[in-house]
């Protein structure tokens, strides 16, 4: 009876899209689990995660191992991407499925940082926001979970319902930055 078709959060938004030195694409939909250790249980959570090559991230950090990523996502909260929550975790932490709650976007290219500087009030210079660094920050008027995925690549997670606005905002900024680059040339 599994006859329901699934719809991706960025379906119909015209992605991927390249403008100037920047490409915006939807990230593949992955399993996302919010992990919130109970008081005093971070060490126990760490023990379970260590078996997967992961650890519970400090604020502003993320870790990657074997195709899975664990990303700090707020006070005493991390999001585990790309794998099911390991066995034994639920004894020490609240777990909730967030796979459908977020729209993931990747912005990459030499102008990615300039584009984000139009929308995010945080310091994304390499020294201040290294690869794997992450933050919760406002993207114009919505909130975003941003993670540096590479030298010139950023992953952005916004609430699923706001994906359209996020793509609109980013596209606008990409257009303006592309116009500046064209003017310089």
């Amino acid at each position, binding site marked *: *009876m*599994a*006859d*329901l*078709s*699934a*719809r*991706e*959060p960025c379906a*119909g938004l015209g992605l991927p899209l390249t403008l100037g030195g920047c490409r915006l694409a939807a990230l593949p*939909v992955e399993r996302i689990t*919010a992990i*919130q*250790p*109970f*008081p005093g249980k971070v060490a126990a959570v760490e023990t379970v995660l260590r078996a997967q090559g992961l650890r519970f991230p400090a604020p502003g950090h993320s870790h990657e191992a074997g195709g899975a990523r664990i990303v700090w996502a707020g*006070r*005493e*909260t991390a999001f585990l991407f790309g794998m099911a929550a390991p066995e034994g975790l639920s004894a020490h*932490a*609240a*777990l*909730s*499925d*967030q*796979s*459908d*709650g*977020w729209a993931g976007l990747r912005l990459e290219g030499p102008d990615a940082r300039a584009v984000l*500087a*139009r*929308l*995010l*009030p*945080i*310091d994304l*210079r390499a*020294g*201040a926001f290294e690869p794997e660094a992450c933050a919760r920050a406002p993207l*114009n*008027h*919505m909130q975003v979970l941003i993670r540096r995925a590479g030298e010139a690549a950023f992953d952005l997670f916004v*609430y*699923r*319902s*706001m994906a*359209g*606005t*996020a793509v*609109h*905002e980013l596209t*606008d*900024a990409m*257009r*303006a930055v*592309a*116009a*500046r680059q*064209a*003017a310089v040339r």
Partner: protein
Amino acid sequence: MTHRIPGKGLIDRTRPLRFSFDGREFEGFQGDTLASALLANGVQLVGRSFKYHRPRGVLTAGSEEPNALVEVIEGKQKTPNVRATVQELYGGLTVQSQNRWPSLRFDVMAVNDRFAPFLSAGFYYKTFMWPRAFWEKVYEPAIRRAAGLGALSGLHDEGRYEKAFAFCDVLVIGAGPTGLMAALVAGRAGADVILADEDARMGGRLLSDQPEVAGQSGPDWAADMLAELAAMPNVRLMTRTTVTGVYDGGTFGALQRVGLHLADPGDLPRECFWRIVAKRAVLATGALERPIAHPDNDRPGVMLASAVQSYVARYGVNPGRVVVFGNNDSALQAARDLTAQGVQVAGYVDPRADVSVLEEFPVYPGGQVVGTRGRLGLREVAVRHGGGVSMLTAETLALSGGWNPSLHLTCHLGGRPDWDERLAAFVPRAGMVAGMSVAGAARGRFSTAACLADGAALAAEVLADMGIAGHDMPLPAAEDRSYAIAPFWAVDAGGRAWLDFANDVTTKDVQQAAQEGFSSVEHMKRYTTQGMAPDQGKSSNVAALAVLADATGQGISATGTTTFRPPYTPVSIAAMGAGGRGMGFAPERLLTSDSQTRAMGAPMIEAGLWYRPSYFPRAGEATWREACDREVSMVRTAVGVCDVSTLGKIDVQGPDADRFLDLIYTNMMSSIKPGRTRYGLMLREDGHVMDDGTCARLGEAHFLITTTTAAAGPVMRHMDFVHQAFCGDWAVRFTSVTEQWAQFALAGPKARELVNKLLETPVDAENFPFMACGPARILGVEGRLFRISFSGEMGYEIAVPARFGAAVFERLVAEAEAMGGGAYGMEALNVLRIEKGFITHAEIHGRVTAFDIGMQGMVSAKKDCIGKSASQRPGLMGPEREQLVGLVPVDPQAELSAGAHLYNENDPATRVNNQGYVTSAGYSPTLQSWLALGFLRDGRARHGQIIRLDDGLRGRKVACKVVHPVFHDPEGGKLRG
């Protein structure tokens, strides 16, 4: 006739540009400002003054310009108050003068000038005090028509604007000799540097005075340094960027002109408003020259000496014969430099008696300019000297009353500068802005060599402070002339001598202010309006307070300055609000059912940031009411489907979750059994109702609570606060899962039949009774099922992961329609809940208590909760309270409206008689009557009474019967199914 000096200037003569001013076509060159291009075409008259409509020309060559404000026309759009000295020339630039009628050369309102004796300082305050009512209706409109600046087009500004954020180690503000050196030192040391300059071309006075630096011309040396800086990956050069404000924590506001200098900016924004966060800043903003107040010093052709130098050296403008009037060595040097460049200096006038006379031009030591002549442009300058008064023929009068360090930004956080007697100027004190060093002319070091040295030295200090190793950098050789000045502010020779050109303030106005008791500088400013124009008195503040100090007999130091506040130069609101228009105003939250809903023709309404269907129109329905009535009946008789995903969903887990919920809800949640749901009420700390919703116990230590759509954020914040503030050690964690689940309400007598079409395991009244909850397989997908209702009918809510939302909605609507039901929207939802007396935030609007809404019984006596004690304060419970009631019109078809007030039948509709108000109203097709919910004083004791609903806004008076707020199925038999 061209007024250019052949071969001179930094303009690109291979790129001529056509532009128009007041309908006349002119030609300029790439690299010109509008001001330089007009001057090069012999146009001296560019505007009319604010109050007296006196003819005015260009005074300065920078952003401090008080006179030359124009309107830039782009199609139907008009940008007023553009400084001609800042606007760069582009092909097709169309400009018109402002504040004149019918034309710039003949301005009817110039008659104001004839009445000048009556229009002096304080005129408005004295004249228009009486009769009071005349101010708004007569005087103010008349004055606004006569006095003023440019006008807006009246159209929406469709231009693109941008805002952006930048971060750096060192922000260098100003790219003259000081700033360039500072940036070089910091850049070479590897620091992240932003060098911002308001000019289109960096170099500052190196481009205008063109002193020799390291054996090169000023512009060449600057170009070499800029090339080196541009090649450094750690240095960002921001031209056309004015740092406009200093804020806490090393944050600076800056306005960048991005596309305003281009004929076709394409996708470029017009302006970008930057917020720059810098660990350290070097202020290298130089200094601004100030004029001298003398009779008729506002005639077109009167300029600052530094401006004349700029127009000659940078733009190749021929100023004609020039008289220089100055009180300092820089003025004398200007006269020499102009002569060296082939300009005819008709005289150098200096009030100092000991000034050198061995020059290549006539020198008038101990001289003063006592007047000017020429109708719309300067023709003659009257010079009083030892031998009497001479009339000198000249097209340009260059004034120099000395230099004011540009220390405005140092004052933005409340710092006050010091008066330096030697420089006759204010200079910054150390430490006015934490982390900011002031260098070069901005702190009174005026020679090129001193600026270069100071920029390098302060940058080295800043680096050392940050622990960055700097390299020794040899200082380039440059002029190191001394600067001497004899303070001289105003010529006393009768007539009107202008201090503030932008707001038409004369020396007499300032003196009069002092005489009338406005002797504090802040009072003088407000009384005369000196310094309150768009230029913020950059050319006039110091002279005005010197004249005031003289009139009061206090020294300048004791008189003090007015306060410099951001922005340094005008910032368009559009730039500050960039990104806030259209879709940028607020994020649009779209439901998973959005596409289908819109395809079904539903008009959408905003609920918080969400877009929800208002109703689903069907063929033959002419009004929303018809659709709404049909949808309500559909729910009451068959089944309706509604997307309720917007309700906040918060997942609460942990061994202490039940305790925590007991703390935030008024009622007991710890006693809910797993698999059951309970309605709950939350209070704010002040005892008033915060929100209501359901609390489902999914497992022993796992709850899912719902909030109203609008309160999802505030409730989450409230929970966070309660947890962090009162019970941080409790083992409870919560997170929003609103977006994770698409949730649909199925309501109506056929709701169970419908839900069973989707469930793998059918439910019935026994295995899934009223208020049950639990996991469910829905069309093959793991979801959740709740037996709850907001309509008063048998109701289920099913939740599936959001990716399946669209498909589930489509299926539900199709199945419901086949059963005689269908989708229903917010209008029907509202009527359904009014019929049932269910509250929303229309009722729990922030000023009501649980007692008021008849839910005092839900405040558990067995436990404490947030807001409980506060809700027991005197005055929050009792007959004096306005309590929730139902209202039924005596004539069922009489329309009721929310917002109306309630009065006893024969009382007039005045405040003291107010008995309450209506919060929700709607037509009930079920009861064939209008219904309303509202709050009525002692309402629960008044069921059965007749009360008058009075809607003053719509002129509606309706007699209503006060009833219990549950109109439909008060026993709840249908609800429980």
